[in-house]
Structures are given as structure tokens and as C-alpha cells.
């Protein structure tokens, strides 16, 4: 079985982020593997194990041929990676990103399943997975909290507010997995040492046949303004004089929680 995992390499959230004049995120420091995607990587490794063999390929689009985040996923056990990196990608909107990633999936060879996270930690539009599936012409199964593969079909438990729906599709398919579905493994020391020699196929927009369709050139979305989120309002303060519980109860009643 051949599973592709989309992994986004994002600026380290521990370092304060900054925006460029065109409102795009500054991507200068060494990027890290988006934690949201570490679940997809773990899930893929487990699915390949359960299938009794196969391979996990990573797909990423990032600036400056950055591989730092990819190496982490390669150290966890993925076999190889396709990295779309090209100055022409700068300014890509979510659709542009989806186009590049879909083409990269085709470049990865014969693929049974693509895994993504439900949303990235930096852009979090949550739109890339469905767009990719549409471009590939494959079914999209989203918000999976459990994934099983058997006899050419994929069955997921799709997270809902009330619980979950069971959703099934034939392979190949694209599945987005929610955070926390599996416990991502630590890379072993051996895996870390091996990661630097694993193949990373770096390709440009032209290599993917997407000349002129990515980056600012292809974006149909423009970022007109970025504003700070409104500051959180101060809460109400009560001194508990022994009747505090009544205040809590009436507060919850107002919210119609009880």
C-alpha cells in the first residue's frame, strides 16, 4: 500500500510570528513539521504496517527548498518526499496550494490513499483537503478520528458534534484526520540518522505543469487587510460570600447550558 501524507512545514509557533508588507507570513527561520500533520504521518505508518507492507511518501509545498520539517517526518519512518518549492509559489492561496499538492501526488506514483490534517496550524483555512480531492477526482473523507483499510475500501469514523458517522469510500481516496487520533511516535535515533539520506524530490511549478498558476500570479484571493483579534473582554468578578454557587447556576442558566 502506498500512502501519501501532506505535511506542511510551518514557522515555529514558539517564535513570535510576523507579517510581510503584503500581509503574508514571514517564513524566515527554520520551519518545523506542523504538529497537526504529525498525526497523519503516524496514521500512515500504522496503516502501512497493518497492510503488511508498502510505503509512506510525504508531500509538501514550502519556500526556499526547506526540508527541516520533512526530515522530522522522514525520521519517524516515511520513505521519501516530494517537495514543491519555487519562488513562483509565493503568495499561493489555498486553491493554488491544493493544485500544487494534487500534482505532487500524481508525481509520487501510484497512490492508494492521501492523508492530510483537517486544518494547518498557521493558515487554518481548512479548505486544502477537499480542493485536492476534487482536483484528483477522488472521494474526500474529512474529519476522520479512525481510519481502516480493507479490500480496496477505506472506512472512517467522521467526527460530528454528537459522536461520529461511519463513512466509506473506494480507494484511491483522500482522508483528513483530526488531531489526537493517534499518538505520534518519537523518531528513533536510527531513524534520525537515516533521514538525511532519504530521497527528497524537489520540483518547481513548471515541473508540475503549473507554470503561471501558482503564487500571486494564480491566486484568486487577495489579502486586503490583517487585524489583531479583538482583546478578550474582562470577565465578571464576584466575591464568594457563601452564595457564589447561586451566581454560577444563574450564569449557566442564562447560557442555557443547564
Amino acid at each position: 500500500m502506498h500512502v501519501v501524507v501532506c505535511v506542511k512545514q510551518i514557522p515555529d509557533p514558539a517564535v513570535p510570528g510576523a507579517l510581510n508588507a503584503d500581509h503574508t507570513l514571514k517564513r524566515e527561520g527554520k520551519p518545523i513539521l506542523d504538529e497537526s500533520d504529525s498525526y497523519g504521518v503516524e496514521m500512515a505508518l500504522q496503516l502501512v504496517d497493518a497492510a503488511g507492507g508498502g510505503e509512506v511518501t510525504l508531500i509538501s509545498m514550502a519556500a526556499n527548498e526547506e526540508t527541516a520539517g520533512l526530515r522530522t517526518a522522514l525520521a519517524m519512518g516515511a520513505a521519501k518526499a516530494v517537495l514543491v518549492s519555487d519562488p513562483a509559489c509565493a503568495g499561493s492561496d489555498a486553491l493554488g496550494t491544493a493544485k500544487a499538492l494534487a500534482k505532487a501526488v500524481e508525481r509520487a506514483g501510484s497512490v492508494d490513499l492521501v492523508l492530510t490534517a483537517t486544518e494547518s496550524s498557521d493558515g487554518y483555512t481548512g479548505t486544502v483537503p477537499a480542493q485536492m480531492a476534487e482536483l484528483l477526482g477522488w472521494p474526500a473523507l474529512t474529519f476522520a478520528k479512525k481510519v481502516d483499510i480493507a479490500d480496496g475500501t477505506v472506512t472512517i469514523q467522521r467526527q460530528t458534534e454528537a459522536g461520529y458517522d461511519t463513512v466509506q469510500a473506494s480507494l484511491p481516496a483522500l482522508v483528513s484526520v483530526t488531531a489526537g487520533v493517534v499518538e505520534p511516535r518519537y523518531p528513533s535515533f536510527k531513524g534520525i540518522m537515516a533521514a538525511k539520506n532519504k530521497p527528497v524530490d524537489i520540483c518547481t511549478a513548471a515541473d508540475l505543469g503549473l507554470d503561471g498558476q501558482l503564487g500571486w500570479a494564480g491566486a484568486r484571493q487577495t489579502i486586503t487587510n490583517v487585524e489583531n483579534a479583538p482583546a478578550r473582554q474582562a470577565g465578571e468578578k464576584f466575591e464568594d460570600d457563601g452564595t457564589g454557587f447561586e451566581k454560577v447556576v444563574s450564569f449557566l442558566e442564562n447560557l442555557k447550558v443547564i
Partner: protein
Amino acid sequence: MFEWSEEHQMIRSAVREFVEKEVRPHREELEHGDMAPYELLRKLYKTFGLDVMAGASFDKRIAREEAAALAPMASASDDADGASEGSSGNAGMTMLPIIELCRCSPGMVTAMGVSVGLTAAAINGKGTIAQRKRWARDIATMEKIGAWAITEPNSGSDAFGSMQATARLDGDEFVLNGSKTFITNGPYADTIVFICKLDEGNPLNERRVVQFVLDAGMPGLEQSKPLRKMGMHSSPTGMLFLDDVRVGYDRLLGETLESFGGKAGREASKATFTMERTGVAAMALGIIERCLELCVPYAKERVQFGQPIGNYQLIQLKLANMEVARLNVQNLVFRVLEMSAAGKGMSLSEASAMKLYSAQIATQVAMEAVQLFGGNGYMAEYEVEQLARDAKVLQIYAGTDEIQITHIAKALLA
């Protein structure tokens, strides 16, 4: 080498994450409870594949030596890299877990180092292939816990000179007697290397030093409960009592008395001392890094006389000295890695110099960290208190400061 390589940095961040998630939440139990460190250490080994790696490298080395024994011509060249096993491929893989664990729980490193470092090395250094397979492999993979017992109530710094523990030949068995103290892992060890003198009816100072491997539970062997001590609470330390413990030649390291010409036995122990002393530099680095990491934000946040204390030059001096210490000790650690990568062994005197400096400066840094934190620094909650107690032992075990000085001076004046 002036910085950690990209692979090293990946190893470091993976181990750091493990320590934060798996070890730090147990700090309280490790420090003030009865939690032994072994399950956490095993988890560390398993998580990062260190158990599998240690087993594979052990098997490979034994296979190579067995092949060389069959074709003796080939063996000479193979021997060269023999001593550096474990450290050979990539010493960083050994050093980084030491540094990272010491940022939280230096005692765990003591427990680990004495087992997979000292004890396994002693068996690998002197043991026959059969003995190494029997005991050293399981210790290297952390399946079994090892202890290395040389210190006695009346023999510490002068370990060989005033050693009283004895082995007496009785037919084709040895009868072992004596007591050992301050033995790391002593209370829980599965496998114990017991160092003593062969009593052939000759005077104490003429007796040969011999080493035996004991298993927990042997008749006549008693392992005490952990001793209460100043620091390193996550490393259980105890006493061993041997009362007519009977063992065959199969437990005598080397399986023949000929392998212990008085001098050779001492040389084998010296090689182990060198490894132990360079390990202390890595421990010191972890402690110093953590002190800085805790002190810098505290100096910025703690306000007295209307200003952050970091504005005062006396506090700045402390921070600057910590940074100087960090750079120096890190450079020493880098030197160990570079020498190992170049296949060069370190002299005992250089290892002693490294250990002396690292131990002293780590203790100094940790004590100054307590000072910088004021009253909070004296409280267990603020962590520097633990680091200061833990750091102190680096000046005592693995050879006291004073003994390191004698080793350095001896080499200089030779």
C-alpha cells in the same frame, strides 16, 4: 565542530520532548518519593530504539571477534576500534541523552551511566565472550540493571590500596567476602561487578585485584535499601554485603587468574575511569544549561527596588559567569565528540582535567542560580535547589576533585 549538527539537533529536540512529557511529570516522585528511575530509563531506550541499537552493535562486535578468533591474522586491525564501542559511530548519540536528562533529573543519568556505562564496560573489557553474552548484552539493552562495586567503607579515593574485600580459592571455587558502600543501583541491581583482592595468604598490599560478576539473590549476597543522601535522589545508592558467597571460575571476569596481572586489572579500570569522567562533562553541561534557562527569565521578571533584578550588575555578573561556563563546558563536550569521531582516545589526565573543571563549575553555577532566585531558590518548587544538590556530587564521585588534581599533576610532572 562548533555547534550541534542538524541530526544532533533533531535528536536533542526529540529527547527534550520526551523528558518534558515522560520524565518531568514524575520529578516529584523521583525526588521525594520512592520511584526508581529504571522504568523511565527503559522507556527512553525503547522509544528511541536505543535498546535495539545497543543489542545489534553488541552482536555485531561479538560476531566480529568470534570470526577474528577463527582467523587470527585479521584480528590485529579490528582491535583498534574495539575500545571505543558505543562511542564510536556517533558519540553525540550517547552525550545528548545525558545532557537532556540532566536538565531535569541528573540522578537518572547516574543510574543509567553506572549500568550501561561502567558495569557493561567492565564486563566487556575483561570478560570472555561467553561472559559478555551472559551478562553484558542485557545490561547494554537496559533489560537488566548493573552495579559496579569498588568503594568500601574504608577504601574510597584509595580504592585499590586499602581494599579489604577478598576472594579466597577453595577447590575450584572462590569464596567472596566484604562490604561495599555508596554503590549506585546497589539496592536494585540484577547484575553486580564486584571488585576485590585475591587472598593467597600474602600481605594485603601485594594481592592481585580481581573482578567477579554476581547476580541478585545469590546466597550470601545482601543488597541494602537506598541510603538517604543530599542529592541525586533519582539514583538509588546502597550497600552490598558479601558473606561467604561461593562462585566458580565462570563468574571470574576473564575466567582465569592469569588475565589479572596486577597491572592489567588496574589498566582496565583506568579505561573505564576515562569514559566516566568525560560523561561528567556532559552532565555538567545539562545542569548549567538548565540553570541559565531558569535564571534568565527570572532575572527579567523579578522586580525589587522598582526594577527587574537583571538590571543590577551583581546579577548580571552571575548570568555572564553562567554563560561563560556553558560555553566552556560545551566546548569540552564538543572536543570529546571530535576526538571520538577522529578515533582518538583521551588520556586519563585530560579526562581528569575535564571532569575537575566541569564538576566545579556546574556546582558553582547551580549554587549561584539558587542565590539569584533568593528565597525561592531555596525552595524545592523552584528546581535550582535540586540542581545545586545534584551538582555537588559531581565533585565527589568518579574520583573526587582532589584525586583529579593528583592525576593531572602526576601527568604534568612525570
